[in-house]
């Protein structure tokens, strides 16, 4: 997987990295859900398992903004999820921070520099999908069945 050589984000007025540009955009379909994904790293663009939606540009329901964070080193730690009325908030150490706003239909995440594409595609991406789907399932809006047992890669 190609990856952009990210320049450091050195804006002294943006210490939180809020305004890291995410110029790469892609559209996908996940069952009934249409995703618009913005990122700053080609390695964080999902592979095609979600299904590319060529017609989604005008009716995107969920927006994902996923920023590679070159200043967040280290591995993923065990996830800790906070659930509130409107949000699912996840930290896995500083290597991955995720906020899912179910009301605004946004998934916002920072992915640390040491998370390789394989870990991202095989673990984080399904995890993102699950995070946005679970509350939807509660509201009977999703087609997806969650839970079950560990499956094998195939």
């Amino acid at each position, binding site marked *: 997987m190609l990856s952009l050589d990210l320049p450091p984000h050195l804006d002294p*007025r943006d210490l939180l990295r809020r305004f890291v540009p995410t110029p790469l955009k892609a559209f996908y379909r996940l069952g009934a859900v249409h995703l618009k994904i913005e990122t700053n790293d080609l390695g964080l663009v999902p592979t095609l398992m979600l299904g590319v939606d060529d017609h989604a540009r005008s009716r995107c329901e969920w927006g994902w*903004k996923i*920023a590679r964070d070159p200043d967040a080193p280290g591995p993923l730690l065990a996830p800790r999820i906070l659930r509130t009325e409107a*949000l699912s908030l996840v*930290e896995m*150490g500083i290597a991955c921070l995720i906020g899912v706003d179910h009301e605004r239909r946004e998934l916002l995440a920072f992915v640390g520099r040491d998370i390789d594409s394989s870990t991202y595609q095989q673990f984080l991406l399904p995890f993102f999908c699950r995070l946005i789907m679970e509350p939807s399932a509660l509201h009977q809006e999703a087609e997806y069945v969650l839970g079950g047992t560990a499956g094998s890669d195939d």
Partner: protein
Amino acid sequence: MSSACHMFFGGSSRPPFRARVISIVITRLVLNQNTLPFSADCSIAGVPWQLSTNSPYVLQAAEKWRPLKRGSKPALFEMEVLVDSAQHAPLRTAHFRGIRHLVFATLPPSNFVVYDLARKRVHAALSEDTARNLSFWNNLLLPISIGVLGTAIGIAPLHCACLERNGAGFLLAGVSGAGKSTLTMALANRGFAFISDDWTYVSKARSAPVAHGLYSPIKLLPDAVRFFPYLRTLAPHATLNGELAYELDPLRLPKITAKSRSYPQRLLFLERLSAPGCHFKICPPEYAKAYFEAHAERLPDEVPGAKEFRSDMFQHLAAYPAWILRTGEGPHETAEALDDFLSEATHAVA
């Protein structure tokens, strides 16, 4: 509250996609009325807020922030704090990131805090040790919370000190390394009332700016021992950003008067000179406003009215008399010169 993580996705209209994940433990913490049975009305920097928690220790820590007058104003923000006694998470480093309306903070040893600026809510998962730590509450979590929520709740955080001389407050701004903290300490030692050192939180009361300090510690770098020899009796320690510094509780320092707030009436912009001397130069309102704007955090579009509120606050502050203070002297000499200058300025106004 934990469960093994096994994921299986299958869509009705598409071939099933399965991801195998090795068995890991996910901690799930739900924040709602059932899990957070205790609540309290609080007030900080003039802002009413509501705390919900499951921990009596947190409730106790918040006692310092209970309002003197109970409840006519509605809470401007809510803080939900879940203390997880079963939590033994690995050590987290201090780390802050923001994206649109959310700000994430991991705070050592194993605390996770998220700020939702759009809904004006703070969600926190704390360890039990942290919940019992008053210093964490008063010197870290609450000042950080006010700084992060800031403009969303009607407060403009300014990177400057605030002091008061004979009841007249002034803001002391300057870039890092200009010597704000040592000058603040020297002024406090001369009898100026201390409100804040590094960050001042400015709200409005009856349309006048009010500067709040939250009694946060005065932070001095190790080389400040040259000017304040009694620091030799103390030990500097690593602060949140990893910097080695002395952190002095203004309420425990002898001969220093600490106040929670002041009404600033003057502005001073500190600049360091390589040559000896101490000079005051009148500073136009445009300079003051441009300085504040240039040194303020960029604000996200997702917080309605935040930019306008802050710009209005800067405009208001910039209308006060302001000077650039250029000094090549040490903090005590500069404090003496400033004391004399403010005295003369007061007489001139009178």
